[in-house]
């Protein structure tokens, strides 16, 4: 960080910069940095560990002022209750079927549109892209009012159809932006080479662009999946019958305003959060590269 560390600035083997690497840092400073990071990690992870802790408590000791992560008489009773005495599988099924359909439809609709935005300079292209950005500014709660009223008039309340339509369309603008950014990085020469071989521009999309853009499609699929999977607001408005509940509504119903089923709630949270977090952490490198693609290049 500073010249008192005792190396010369011409020594190339020790690139030194406070903002780049810490080779030249004093041990005290290195320890301090690790301390700060450990503290941040504890803050990040502690509330999650608390859910785990409550989920392992036996039924008669759910309310306890103990701060131990693994309770003394840990039991899996809450998990048994959630899996067998609650509608857990029903919520999971509802969420899965809505979310997967949504994500697939969203990717298909967005991929062709993004190709048009990436490869053609048609009139209205710029305003179209700005329009897509503007839709991201509309508060979700704002669209809820007309969508609820229209859905009520069209008898789409308490159906999967209404939710699937709404979710797959709402994710399109963001998906188009990400996919367009990715297509832009694929050289146009590839399309042209294919066209010289007598392939039409559309066929070159299917034969060249689509196979090359599988990573971006995976990112978009995952984004769409996560958005729909984690949605509460639209589901709360559209689904009122208990057999239609997605897991977000189900979890909320366990945490009623007057009586909270802490054990069942925590066990269900853990069962849902662990796979989602694993998927997210596993794919975080791609997700993040997809997010930063546009901004770094722009």
């Amino acid at each position, binding site marked *: *960080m*500073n010249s008192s560390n005792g190396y010369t600035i011409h020594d190339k083997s020790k690139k030194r910069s*406070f*903002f*780049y*690497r810490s080779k030249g840092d004093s041990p005290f400073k290195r320890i301090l*940095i*690790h301390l700060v*990071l450990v503290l941040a*990690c504890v803050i*990040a*992870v502690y*509330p*999650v560990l*608390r*859910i785990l802790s409550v989920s392992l408590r036996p039924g008669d000791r759910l309310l306890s*002022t103990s*701060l131990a992560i693994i309770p003394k008489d840990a039991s899996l009773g809450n998990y048994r209750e959630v899996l067998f005495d609650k*509608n857990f*599988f029903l919520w999971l*099924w509802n969420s899965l079927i809505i979310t997967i*359909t949504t994500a697939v439809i969203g990717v298909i609709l967005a991929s*062709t549109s993004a190709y*048009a935005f990436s490869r053609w300079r048609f*009139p209205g292209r710029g305003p179209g892209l700005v329009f897509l950005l503007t839709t991201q*500014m*509309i*508060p979700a*709660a*704002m*669209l*809820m*009012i*007309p969508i*609820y*009223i229209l859905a009520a008039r069209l008898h789409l309340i308490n159906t999967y*159809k209404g939710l699937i339509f*709404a979710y797959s*369309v*709402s994710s*399109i*603008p963001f998906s188009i932006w990400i996919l367009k950014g990715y297509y832009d990085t694929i050289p146009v020469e590839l399309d042209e080479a294919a066209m010289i071989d007598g392939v039409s521009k*559309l066929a070159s999309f299917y034969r060249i662009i689509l196979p090359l853009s599988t990573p971006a499609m995976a990112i978009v699929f995952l984004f769409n999946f996560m958005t729909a999977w*984690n949605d509460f*607001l639209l589901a709360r408005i559209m689904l009122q019958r*208990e057999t239609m509940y997605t897991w*977000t509504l189900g979890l*909320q119903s366990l*945490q009623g*305003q007057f009586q909270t089923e802490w054990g069942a*709630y925590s066990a269900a*949270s853990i069962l849902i959060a662990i796979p989602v*977090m694993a998927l*997210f*952490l596993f794919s*975080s490198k791609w997700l*993040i590269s997809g997010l*930063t693609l546009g*901004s770094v*290049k722009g």
Partner: protein
Amino acid sequence: MHSLNLAIIRNSLGQVGFTIIVIVLASAVIEMVLYAVLKVILKNKYAIPIMLLAPAAVGLIMLVVYPVFYEFKIAFSNMSLRHFKNPSYGLARGWNNLKLIFTQPVLKQVMFFPLLLRTILWTVIQLSFHVSLGLGLAILLNRKMKLRGLYRTILIIPWAIPQVIAALTWRGEFQYQYGFINIMLRDIGLTAIQWKSDPFWNFVAMNITNIWLGVPFMMIILLGGLQSISAEYYEAAEIDGASAWDRFKSITLPMLSPVMAPAVILGTIWTFNNFNIPFFINENELETSDILVTALFRAAFQYNRYGFAAAFAFVIFLVLFIFAVLYMRATGGLKGVYEK
């Protein structure tokens, strides 16, 4: 108790199949019509891109553009639970709704301007914590050291956990007797806090939760930005004798701004429109913890004042839109849109 049974599975698969068939058929019809009109009759040179865009465009028109116009129409009505089927429309109704927003309480007590100020305060607090803590952690992580990957993985956990679970869990932890914050406060000899019923502390609770949730996103985006800055700049600056602060101010910040500007504007929009956190943490439905969008939700779906809420929604959108335009003017945040 409704267990997952065959009838439910059959019903849901049937609905999904129906939805997919409707979408495929509709797309096929649209494409054939467009092909016939644009390609065969008009011989338009943009026939193919228009055909590629059509299905998504139709979807967006049906589920975003049309609802917005429909909402505009509702804003000029007295639609409510009582007048749901047969509302009356008119300019006077619209004017009345608009007047009500600024002169009467939006919900029971809270007025529009305090609500707006609170939303701005909420957004400013959130963004300053997200950016400063996110940048600080990103700088610490942007160096070669042991356990770097592990730290990074653990630190994005709040972003990875489903937001509804995070919000409901924090709400539980703000419970007076058994929440861990109050337990810790008591352990170190302080008095426990009424997080749920005290208006001030409820607002603080909301902020704590959302800071916890929002820092990882900023951290990761800014870390990506930091990694793209070449070390040579820092070396050159060091040769010129620049101090650490100088280097931060004249290299890190300006070089980060192409990454930071869109992240800040996205973050602002998301925070301004954040529904889950203020809605869930505010378990006792204190009007003093509502921000604009949660008040909008309550006006529409708890008080069922649809006409009023529709007008209110446009006012909220306008506030955000003006901010976004001003911000983009100032930073050139949309430059990339036209260039490519």
